[in-house]
């Protein structure tokens, strides 16, 4: 259906470089998510693929064709906007039929396509309603229907769930995932919500300040973050980042001195780094365990979510977050003995880049 390639794409607003050299390939049928904090350029990048923003340097290719200078309507892309962007003076049917009609398709060709899309999204009963007579979720489905009907090479989603309430967001998210499976279409999805990214994506592109920080599957990005930014951005609660020093190393065995903790910890893994290097150790909250022979940490805050418990601790003057399944009953200020399960931990150098070598698992 469609693949997208970005080569050396840069964009400037005046003297400010907002997209700083992006290379990326989205393959046919993939659902790729652009994720990152506000202002990182993910929407801008998406809009450059759509043709709604100019590209200052570099190329955009769709199915191998250079579309960088092509008008948006000619690129074969369809976009779903955050605010739905439905044509307010038309009903749902006409909204979806608009593009096809302008392209010259007859009624006999337009109607089945519109109805098929409406069926997929269960909006058949809304077809003769105007946008202002619809709820947010319904409008969003019409907007998606409008994109489906055009049978595009690539679907572009610009934070489509951000304006929906929490329950609707989860429901629509599932619908989009189902849609992806059914249509087997290439989709690029932009969000600032890393949960959406993790659940929807075949591959995630983590962006920060106009630069790609990492591209990888959700698993890769989670377990093997390329740098401290990705480590801190993906996963909630965020990964614990503990300043440390390599006290000694022998091959794949490291002895790390964490902060002021007297006892060094052992870390095994294929990492770079030499003795004496300042590093950062990354440990996910679920790998912080309550253990009888662990170090005592003070409970600063306990969050009981019912199915799991998150403890914000203080260990040797440093914050530490622990996450455990089930309901753990602790009092504020209590001392809890904890250990760090370092299998699968990350190690970052002084500049913040991951020290892990070889391909990740």
């Amino acid at each position, binding site marked *: 259906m469609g693949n997208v390639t970005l080569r050396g794409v840069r964009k400037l607003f005046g003297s400010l470089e907002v997209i700083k050299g992006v290379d990326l390939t989205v393959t046919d049928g993939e659902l790729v998510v652009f994720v990152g904090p506000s202002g990182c350029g993910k929407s801008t990048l998406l809009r450059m693929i*759509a*043709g*709604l923003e100019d590209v200052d340097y570099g190329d955009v290719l769709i199915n191998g064709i250079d579309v960088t200078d092509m*008008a*948006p*309507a*000619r690129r074969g*892309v*369809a*976009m779903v*906007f*955050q*605010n*739905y*962007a*439905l*044509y*307010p*003076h038309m009903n749902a049917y006409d909204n979806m039929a*608009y*593009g096809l009609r*302008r*392209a010259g398709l007859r009624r006999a060709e337009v109607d089945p396509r519109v109805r098929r899309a409406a069926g997929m999204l269960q909006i058949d009963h809304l077809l003769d309603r*105007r*946008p*202002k*007579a619809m709820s*947010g979720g319904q*409008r969003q489905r019409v907007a998606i229907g*409008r994109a489906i009907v*055009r049978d595009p090479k690539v679907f572009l989603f610009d934070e489509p769930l951000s*304006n929906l309430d929490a329950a609707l967001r989860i429901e629509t998210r599932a619908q989009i995932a189902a849609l992806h499976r059914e249509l087997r279409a290439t989709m690029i999805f932009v969000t600032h919500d890393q949960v959406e990214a993790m659940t929807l994506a075949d591959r995630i592109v983590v962006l920060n300040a106009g630069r790609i920080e990492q591209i990888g599957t959700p698993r890769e990005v989670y377990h093997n973050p390329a740098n401290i930014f990705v480590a801190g951005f993906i996963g909630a609660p965020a990964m614990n980042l503990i300043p440390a020093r390599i006290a000694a190393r022998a091959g794949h065995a490291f002895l790390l001195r964490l902060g002021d903790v007297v006892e060094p910890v052992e870390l095994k893994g294929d990492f770079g780094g030499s003795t004496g290097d300042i590093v950062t150790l990354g440990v996910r909250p679920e790998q912080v365990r309550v253990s009888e022979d662990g170090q005592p940490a003070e409970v600063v805050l306990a969050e009981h979510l019912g199915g799991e418990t998150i403890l914000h601790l203080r260990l040797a003057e440093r914050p530490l977050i622990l996450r455990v399944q089930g309901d753990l009953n602790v009092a504020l200020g209590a001392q809890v003995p904890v250990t760090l399960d370092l299998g699968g931990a990350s190690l970052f150098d002084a500049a913040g880049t991951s020290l892990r070598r070889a391909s990740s698992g």
Partner: protein
Amino acid sequence: MTSTPAPSLRRRRSGRSEALAGWLFALPWLVKLGLLTLLPLVATIAMGFMTMPITGMPRWVGMANYDQMFADPAFLKSAQNSLMFAFISVPIKLVLALGLALLLHRARALAGFYQTVFYLPFLMPAVAGSIVFILLLTPGAGPVNLALEGLGLDPPDWLRDPQAALWTLVLISIWPLGVETLVFLGGLQNIPKDVNEAAELDSPRSWHRLVWITMPLITPMILFNLVIGIISSFQIFVQALVIGGTEGQPAQSTLMFMVVIYRTAFRYFNLGYAAALSTMLFLAVLAVTVLVFWSARRWVHYEGDTT
């Protein structure tokens, strides 16, 4: 702790004082509405059925004024002129204003400057504007004919040719289109940016967006400008007076309805007849407005929220 009075009592009291304030605040306007607007309206209609000599009492004469009206060449000519004027100048003005608004909408650099320039004519008092246009349109000495000749056209004698004189008025009234342009511009800017972008993605040809998305969404503005335009063009006065005097020179071609009313009332002192003419004007305005609004149902799209 003080006990609060029963809820219903409290609401009623504040509601009453608010209603009272409402009436009081609106009182001056209500006085004008009743005494200086609606009452005179009724009075004028009534006066149309009377004759009002300068000395002596007004007398009821039934339809005499109206009978006279339909045989009066001045009435017929001025009514014809006014209608022609309205139906020529208003559409032209709206089309130009819309075109200008579309251009202004595109302009990012110098937008403020252009808006100022196009709004400036609105500030020119009609008297001064008309006088200047006389100079501009004077054959030989005025630049307009010079330019037209330069383009290879054969320009008319704007001020002395009865065929062309009406067009002089049209030009004068089209020139200050700043208000209409800004209304259209406001409408264009009111279309959400992402609706425009969605249309950009959806429209194979760039003019599709203009015709199918932009235009329908500014139809409320078109309606507004149309109604205002018709009402005011029916009542054009000072420009007509400057260009054509009270006789509508040349050859009654610039005789407008308001000028006829004016001279009937304040030169010939025929107040009854003038009232009848005024009533006629009112009915005409009413009729056209109703017609426009009635047709509006078919072509005006009122949008709601899109988000």
